């Protein structure tokens, strides 16, 4: 069964460093998402992406965040200058329809020191 994959599974970085989280969505999906979950809290939406454009972003998704689909398979989330409060699990998701089932990757656990 096709699945969403994410790399790395864990990342530790120093405050102020740039990180890139990578995702490979399901191959025939057109809608892509990033969510994050701070430890012990609920899952929060960051950004949705369709047709090579951001379709919606949350208040969390400020100028420090960017997304890119550099080729036909990868979908990346970049945090330019990490802060302590960026420590969280980051999930990528994809869907074949705007309001269809979203399939989530296993997540990247980011720790900012």
């Amino acid at each position, binding site marked *: 069964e096709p699945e969403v994959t994410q790399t790395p599974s864990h990342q530790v970085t120093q405050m102020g460093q740039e990180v890139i989280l990578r995702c490979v969505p399901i191959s025939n999906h057109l809608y892509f*998402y990033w969510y994050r979950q701070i430890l012990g809290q*609920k899952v929060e*939406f960051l950004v949705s992406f*369709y047709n090579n454009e951001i*379709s919606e972003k949350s208040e969390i998704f400020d100028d420090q965040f960017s997304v890119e689909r550099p080729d036909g398979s990868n979908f990346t989330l970049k945090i330019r200058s990490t802060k302590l409060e960026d420590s969280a699990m980051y*999930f990528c998701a994809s869907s074949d329809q705007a*309001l269809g*089932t979203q399939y*989530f990757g296993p997540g990247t656990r980011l720790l900012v020191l």
Partner: protein
Amino acid sequence: GIQVEQSPPDLILQEGANSTLRCNFSDSVNNLQWFHQNPWGQLINLFYIPSGTKQNGRLSATTVATERYSLLYISSSQTTDSGVYFCAVPSSSNTGKLIFGQGTTLQVKP
């Protein structure tokens, strides 16, 4: 925006018991998803259920869209059912953004 509330927040069961988890939402929705977050943090799709009832093994879900709630039933619970159960609904923006509830933490004891 739409609000999603789940109950109960915590649930402890003995293995073999049945349980019902509830998800209420404040506005009409086009779909609803149930997820299980396992101890490793992975979000596993359980159901995509905009309305009606679906069953998958020991799990079933019912969504009554007109009354703005969904129920997840777990029968004959097993220790591997432990974890956090989330429901999520799309926002009114129609971009696919999902709004998650706070989750129900389930612990099944042997």
